[in-house]
């Protein structure tokens, strides 16, 4: 039995991979206990407008637990808000936990391949997931629901859960035409469907839901996708799509630094002239969610060059989310560049809220006025001032800024 757990193991695992060998993550368990659910649901019946949202678990894959999330409200506008992270930016960590903790998860277990020949229960859930606006839903539980919270690095927190006995969608879901067409298209691979939907202006969050419910892709390939995998898959697919275009844009002509802070997550993005490359350095300060007091900051780093393939073995959802935002921005300004992005996480981010906060936090960095520099040295000096962790602790992990300084190009000799 491992007597002592490597303090950095938790930052690597983020409660999802059970690297310590325990059945349940003690950090997640402690959080769930401390933050308990405020609204108690009694009885075995619930009626609410489900922000058409569904969570697919990953434990036990390919047999997964899945179920719609139902808020205890019937107001459509309010209900939609419960599950749309694209609208949460600016809310405090308490507000978000409170919001999410009131969502009840109505669970049942299915095999992922049943997406193609759904049972009644799954079919109704898919119907609900298809709708672009909340749908009145009635849920009967087998037993009263357990008041407990679920936290994860990628997924937003989710409230109490109970096993479903019966589920009724009381009204007709609203399905946009474009979505209906692609869900009915059994020949288009999922990656094509995702691109087309995104091009048509369908929100990323909605696309992810369709993908996780096994509603996109070639008929034979369709299956339920655990939500945490689906979120990252969509980040990755949309990122790849824009990257193809970004590669043809001219190189940025100046050195720019963007910063933003949200929920004690601090984002610093350095753009350097050059062909496309992306690097993420994630720094968990002591006393942030996964790192104990007194331990050193935990640093995760990964990068990709022009080919868009990450170089290190260890990636998680945060990397793909930051990469997407960076590529999206390059696409907007019609330039390619080397992007060096740092996310530093402080102790006031005491519960993981999901990867949306990374996406939104970094997006807002690009909305602010950048600082311009005439040399990489000045830019790095300013970056060092903005980052709380001592310079030599994070600099040794950095790759792209060093490469920018050191790497000469053949064109200089021609």
């Amino acid at each position, binding site marked *: 039995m491992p007597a002592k757990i490597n303090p950095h193991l938790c930052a690597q695992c983020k409660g999802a991979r059970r690297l310590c060998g325990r059945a349940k993550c003690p950090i997640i368990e402690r959080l769930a206990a401390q933050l308990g659910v405020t609204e108690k649901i009694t009885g075995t019946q619930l009626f609410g407008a489900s922000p058409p949202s569904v969570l697919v678990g990953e434990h036990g894959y390919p047999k997964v637990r899945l179920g719609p999330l139902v808020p205890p409200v019937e107001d459509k506008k309010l209900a939609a808000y419960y599950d749309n992270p694209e609208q949460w930016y600016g809310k405090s960590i308490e507000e978000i936990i409170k919001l999410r903790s009131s969502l009840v998860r109505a669970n049942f277990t299915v095999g992922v391949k049943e997406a193609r020949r759904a049972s009644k229960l799954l079919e109704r859930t898919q119907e609900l997931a298809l709708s672009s606006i909340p749908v009145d839903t009635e849920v009967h539980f087998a037993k009263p629901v357990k008041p407990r919270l679920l936290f994860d690095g990628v997924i937003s927190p989710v409230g109490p859960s109970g096993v479903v006995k019966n589920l009724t969608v009381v009204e007709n879901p609203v399905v946009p035409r474009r979505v209906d067409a692609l869900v009915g298209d059994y020949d288009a691979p999922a990656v094509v469907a995702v691109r087309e939907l995104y091009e048509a202006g369908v929100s990323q969050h909605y696309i992810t839901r369709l993908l996780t419910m096994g509603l996109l892709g070639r008929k034979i390939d369709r299956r339920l996708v655990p939500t945490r995998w689906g979120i990252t898959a969509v980040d990755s697919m949309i990122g790849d799509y824009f990257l193809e275009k970004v590669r043809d844009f001219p190189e940025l002509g100046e050195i720019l630094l963007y910063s933003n802070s949200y929920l004690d997550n601090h984002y610093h993005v350095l753009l350097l002239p050059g062909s496309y*490359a992306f690097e993420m350095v994630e720094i968990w300060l002591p006393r942030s969610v996964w790192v104990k007091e007194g331990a050193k900051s935990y640093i995760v780093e990964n990068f990709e060059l022009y080919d868009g393939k990450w170089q290190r073995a260890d990636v998680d959802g945060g990397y793909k989310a930051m990469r997407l935002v960076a590529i999206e921005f390059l696409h907007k300004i019609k330039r390619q560049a080397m992007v060096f992005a740092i996310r530093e996480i402080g102790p006031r981010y005491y519960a993981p809220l999901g990867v949306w906060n990374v996406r939104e936090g970094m997006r807002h960095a690009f909305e602010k006025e950048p600082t311009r520099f005439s040399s990489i040295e000045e830019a790095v000096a300013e970056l060092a001032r903005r980052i709380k962790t001592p310079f030599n602790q994070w600099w040794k992990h950095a790759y792209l800024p060093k490469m920018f300084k050191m790497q000469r190009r053949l064109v200089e000799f021609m």
Partner: protein
Amino acid sequence: MPEEFKIEVEVWSLFRAVFGDARLWRKIIDALSTLIDEANFVATSEGLRMRAMDPSRVAMVDFEMDRSAFNEYLCDQETMLGVNFDDFKKILKRATASDKLELEYSEEEKRLKVRFIGRTTRTFSIPLLEFGQEELATPRITFNASVKMLSESLKEAIKDAEVISDFVRFEANPEVFIIRASGDRGEVEVKIDMAGGGLLSIDVKEPSFAYYSLSYLGEMIKA
């Protein structure tokens, strides 16, 4: 010959080459495609050549294959064959052990035919890309040292360095060639000299060193 049987012949430029081992070409294209997305092969009466830089213009590939390397070779006019390496690679992956490879281009069709000749004859036909006619100049770099060594020794040294760092330092001394890397994970030093047998020749005008990025070298040694 009766008048009505006279055939009018239009002259199109033609390139056709047959190579004995299709799988060797597959390896070549595999290696080139680690650095290059698309490039022009230039077919001349002497043979086939290609020169291209990777998209970030850090590495250059210079490729030449003499006409004598082919079993059959025919080229009546200098021809540019602009190829997307990703597509080309996928096609060449289909080569089997005993296949011969035939490349054919006629100006008339504007397509490159890739034909595998074995138990069956399989012909792929791919559209060519049009780039500017301009060929890349040779970079003007003066070198202070020239080192010849077994490719296996270099490969192993690069792989050793990759364990430790993202960058590598090459040091050329009169007697010995040293490859070093250092980083958070420690240090590594690889000595390549005549006594060990890895070094074939070394010519050092003055002792020199330089740093290189392993993300490029790591790909290049696969070639």
